[in-house]
Structure formats: structure tokens, C-alpha cells
């Protein structure tokens, strides 16, 4: 699994390598990256899951970018040149400045892979995929409610410019937004819509809704959407079916919030550190996978 995205360290060059945790930091290629909102939270959640499952940890492709696009362009260009050689089973695209022409070239490069990776996009990579008309090339999108309205608006190129009537739609209107997104070919094969109620949509049909435990404080905590994406990516990497991975990711994130006794002032790393405890207590019940042993790192 390869996770690509930027982090808010302007001086950080393009780095790539296997991820490991060291205290509150991620370590990639010798660089220490704090676990905060964004790609770092997503990678940290994925790593927590792969560590628990004892499977190969994520590979990360990371560059510094505070919004001016240099790091984002470096990531796009590296992937365009190397994705065929890297041939990841899962490719996760996260915080990168949406640049339509580069997203098109990347998708063309992915099409040339001998084995097409499972393609997951969140955050601005999802915006770029939709704006480029390439949403249907992706296997999983993980929008929140506002981003679902963006996917449903055929003309919007960013969530800041969606039609007001779509933004005003209550979470209960998610099925209508989902239908509109598929009608305009602006949805991935599977959607995990994050909100008061989480919706899992597979091939245009809602296959599950998750509303418990109800931890409304999670919406305020920066990075709790990123952690869902990290979890679903790790579970897909563990070869669960996409919809199973999405359902378990949504349940796990909510339960991690409950375990952390989240308040609006909680930090995302406090949610992530609960993931092993959540898996220990519930993964067997939710997935039927009740014995995790052997695997990555064993002789």
C-alpha cells in the first residue's frame, strides 16, 4: 500500500519509504513528521491498523507543502513516472493541491500498470479526480457531508462553490446526493460518506449506515475524517472486501472516539492511539477475523 500526500513542513523534500511510529511521530526515510490533521493522521491510523493486523506497513510518499503547490507537484510527477514500477496493491491519494492536468496524467500512468492498484482518494485528491471527470476511475472516495454535496453538483470544481440548495441538504438527504453523484459520473465505485450517519455505498446502492456509537464531538476534531480513510485503506490492504473495510473503518473510528472520551478539544492522535484497543475488543465481532498472528516481520 502506497499513501501519497503533503504535510505542512515547508522545507520537507519529497521522501518515500516504509512508515514506522516513534512516540507521537511518524518516521519516513529518516524524517520525523508530527501526527496532526491531514496526511500524517491518515498514515498514522493506517499504520495503527497494519501493526495490529501484523501485515506489511504502509509505504508513504510525502512532501512538504503549505498550500503553494510545490510539494503537491513533486508528488504527482513522482507518481506519474514511477507508479508502474512501484505497482502498489492499494494507492491512496490524499492532501495534494488539485491540479487537473496532473491528475489526468497520473490516471493515465495508473492505467498502464500491469496490475491496477485499488485507487482510494480523499481530501483534495478527491476534488481533483472529480473536477477532472475521473471519479469513476477510483475504487473508493471518502467524502464528508459537504464534500458529498460537491460530488453531487455537476458544475462545482471545489466544495466552496457548490450550489446552496445542495449544501443545505440534511444528512438524511445523502441518498439523493449519492444518486446525483453517480448520475453525473462523479462518484467512485464505493463511497464512504462521513457524517452524523455514515453511509457506505457500493455500486450505487447504500449497503450500510452506521450511526453508533454517536460521538458528535468527532466532527470538530481535525483529522478524524483522515483517520477513517487511513483505516479503510489498511483494511482493504488486508484484503477485506471494499464494503466490509468501509463499514469496519466507520465503526472503528466512532468507537475510538468513544474510547478516547472525545471532546471538541481532543487531538486526533488521542483518537488514533485507541485504535488497537478498539480492534482488540471489536474486530472479531465485526469482521469474523478473530485470530491475528504471524504475518509481517515474522521469519
Amino acid at each position, binding site marked *: 500500500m502506497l499513501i501519497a500526500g503533503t504535510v505542512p513542513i515547508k522545507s520537507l523534500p519529497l521522501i518515500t519509504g516504509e512508515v514506522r511510529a516513534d512516540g507521537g511521530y511518524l518516521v519516513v526515510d529518516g524524517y520525523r513528521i508530527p501526527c496532526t*490533521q*491531514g496526511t500524517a493522521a491518515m498514515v498514522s491510523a493506517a499504520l495503527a491498523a497494519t501493526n495490529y493486523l501484523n501485515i506489511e506497513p504502509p509505504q508513504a510518499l510525502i512532501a512538504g507543502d503549505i498550500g503553494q*503547490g510545490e510539494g503537491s507537484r513533486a508528488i504527482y510527477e513522482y507518481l506519474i513516472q514511477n507508479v508502474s514500477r512501484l505497482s502498489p496493491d492499494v494507492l491512496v491519494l490524499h492532501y495534494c493541491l488539485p491540479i*487537473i492536468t496532473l491528475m489526468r496524467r497520473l490516471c493515465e500512468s495508473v492505467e498502464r500498470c500491469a496490475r491496477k492498484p485499488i485507487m482510494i482518494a480523499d481530501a483534495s485528491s478527491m476534488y481533483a479526480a472529480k473536477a477532472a471527470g475521473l471519479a469513476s476511475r477510483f475504487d473508493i472516495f471518502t467524502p464528508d457531508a*459537504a464534500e458529498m454535496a460537491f460530488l453531487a453538483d455537476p458544475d462545482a470544481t471545489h*466544495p466552496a462553490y457548490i450550489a446552496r440548495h445542495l449544501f443545505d441538504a440534511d444528512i438524511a438527504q445523502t441518498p439523493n446526493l449519492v444518486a446525483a453523484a453517480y448520475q453525473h459520473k462523479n462518484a467512485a465505485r464505493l463511497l464512504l460518506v462521513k457524517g452524523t450517519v455514515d453511509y457506505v455505498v457500493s455500486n450505487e446502492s447504500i449497503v450500510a449506515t452506521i450511526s453508533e456509537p454517536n460521538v*458528535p464531538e468527532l466532527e470538530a476534531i481535525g483529522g478524524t475524517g483522515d483517520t477513517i480513510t487511513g483505516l479503510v485503506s489498511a483494511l482493504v490492504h488486508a484484503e477485506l472486501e471494499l464494503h466490509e473495510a468501509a463499514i469496519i473503518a466507520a465503526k472503528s473510528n466512532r468507537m475510538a472516539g468513544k474510547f478516547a472520551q472525545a471532546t471538541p478539544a481532543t487531538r486526533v492522535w488521542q483518537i488514533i492511539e485507541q485504535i488497537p484497543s478498539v480492534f482488540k475488543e471489536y474486530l472479531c465481532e465485526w469482521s469474523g477475523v478473530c485470530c491475528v498472528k504471524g504475518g509481517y516481520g515474522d521469519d
Partner: protein
Amino acid sequence: MEFLKRKKKPSFEGGGLVLFRDVQDAMKAEKALKGAGYEVKLVAPPPTLRKGCDLAVEVNLVEQPGIERALKEKDADYVSVVPLGTGSLELLRVVKVTDFGKWVMVKAGNMKLTFDKESGIIVNTSGGGCPDIPHLHAELIDKGLTETPHPRDIGFTLCALMLDRAFEESLALWQEER
């Protein structure tokens, strides 16, 4: 021959237009933006978006706040920045407020800012997906609403602009209670 196989350079697709009153302004702005490192292109605006002259600068719409700041710094006059296409020309202005007791969360578009009612300290920002959002998160957290720089002054993208809306609303709410 090899040069005949050379691939055509992909054309720029930015999704946004900077509109001007006259051609000279458009050309000055193009030069200023290229000098600031932005990928831009001089184009003819569609008839529905003409504001006076027949030249506009196509930009990556998501970079709107950074582009407007760069134009102001270079004294490059412009009329407005608008999205291309047939969708909404107006930035989303809807703001929603959630009371969490000790804290208030203000949501503007896809961005949320939460502050402590008593102290005015920003305790979290969430939502969005552009690369400046984790940067703004780090810059704003644990700072007072009256002490921190405004997101639109240090951010570069539309997500930052929406976070600025949430910030301004939060500041107004907090000051009303003082």
C-alpha cells in the same frame, strides 16, 4: 523520427478566471502571477463572464486567495475571480453553528472552527482537504481568536477562504458575548 513522437504538452485547466476592465490590466496580472510562481494562461472570457475587456487570466480556482493576495501585492487591478463553467459564481456563504456547551463549532462550507466560549481559544479546526489546511490547523490551534493571524492572510486555497469565513463568524460570536 523521435521529435515527431513528442507528446503534446497538456493544456492548462484551472477552472477559474480572473476578470479585468482592460487588456493592459490582464497582461500585467498574468506577468505578476507567473512571477509569483502560479501556472496561469491568458484566455478570452466566455460572453457571460465579460466585464469589460476581452482578455482574462485562467487560474487554478482552488488557489484563489493566494492569487488575489499576489495581485494586490503587485498592484495589479482586477474585477473579480470567478469559476469557469455553468455552476454557482458565488462562494458558499452558509454558516452553521453547533453549541457543545463549553465550546462552539462554526461551520462554513466544508470548514469548521471550534473555540472555547470562555477564553476564545481555538481548540480545533477540521474539514477541508487542501494542503494549506494542516498548516492553518497548526497555526491556529491553542491561540486566541483575537491573537491569531486570519486564515485568509496566511492561507492559499479556497479551503482557507472558507476557514476564514468560519473564523470571522467565530470572532463575531465571541465578541458579542464579551
